[in-house]
């Protein structure tokens, strides 16, 4: 390997280390930068520079990592926020619907729910609707060009935590209060088992997405301290 590609590769690698966010989006951005730098090197070569000088000129024109990384981080953070918001906007109504169908059809419980359980169920429903509606608003906010992805993504992460903890906690209490004719150690009705397993998957997905959103928002704030990205 010659020195020139090394210079470009080292700059891209430094950029790679400075960025946090969805892997596919990050890979796409870095691929574009890598090939763009290759175009710039070729351009400088055509103007008569040797390979090493051409690479140095391309890297110089590109700008230092501390100047460019905050701008790229902002976009990665926005993408993470959009992903998390979309996930919340889809899975919370889906969960609400799935559990309500079980209640309406009487597949889950052979006895009518107590007043306490009904109140908790309505609270879970209301919280689910609130989370989904707020997620939709945050999803729309990710289409704005204004440099606020850190705040939007941070708010989305917190919303995800609130949704999982709130709905999860209320659901646990609700199930503890529910009396099942077979007793707590009895067999779980198949329909409840399927929806329960799906709910566990959703809890894991939303929790993971919340952690990623909060980390990404923190990364954007950290980058801002280096060079505030006000371009655009």
């Amino acid at each position, binding site marked *: 390997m010659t020195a020139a590609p090394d210079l470009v590769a080292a700059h891209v690698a430094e950029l790679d280390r400075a960025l946090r966010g969805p892997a596919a989006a990050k890979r796409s951005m870095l691929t574009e930068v890598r090939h763009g730098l290759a175009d710039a090197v070729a351009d400088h070569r055509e103007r008569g520079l040797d390979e090493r000088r051409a690479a140095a000129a391309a890297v110089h024109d590109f700008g230092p990592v501390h100047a460019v990384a905050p701008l790229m981080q902002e976009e990665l953070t926005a993408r993470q926020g959009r992903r998390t918001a979309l996930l919340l906007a889809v899975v919370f109504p889906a969960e609400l619907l799935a559990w309500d169908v079980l209640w309406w059809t009487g597949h889950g419980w052979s006895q009518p729910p107590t007043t306490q359980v009904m109140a908790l169920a309505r609270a879970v429903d209301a919280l689910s609707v609130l989370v989904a509606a707020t997620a939709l608003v945050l999803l729309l906010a990710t*289409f704005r060009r204004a440099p606020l992805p850190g705040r939007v993504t941070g708010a989305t992460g917190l919303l995800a935590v609130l949704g999982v903890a709130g709905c999860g906690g209320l659901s646990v209490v609700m199930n503890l209060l529910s009396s099942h004719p077979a007793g707590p150690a009895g067999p779980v009705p198949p329909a409840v088992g399927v929806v329960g397993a799906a709910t566990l998957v959703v809890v894991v997905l939303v929790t993971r997405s919340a952690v990623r959103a909060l980390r990404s928002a923190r990364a954007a704030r950290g980058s801002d301290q280096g060079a505030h990205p006000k371009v655009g």
Partner: protein
Amino acid sequence: MKPDAVRGHLDGLILAVLEDGPRHGYAIIEALQARSGGRLDLPTGTVYPALRRLERAALVSGTWSTVGGRERRTYTLTRAGRHALAGQRADWTEFSAVVDAVLRPAAGPA
């Protein structure tokens, strides 16, 4: 022109360059330099995240292609992008007229 002076207008400049037709990232950088007569002192690395920001806002659309062994993301101005460009041009005309009116040396006391 210094980067700080360009920053607030980079999105509009990129939209203007794409008005003629689709371009990939480095071609956009070249077009910005050519149309400014080489006077834009801008780190070229800032153009790539600006393109992603415009794409996120649905003002441009990006597609990958491979040309001569190099992977290129080509950007096309969307209908919303054309509308945004028209708005930015109007804003700039108004802004520059106001600043020009204030900066112009006063005629002096009568």
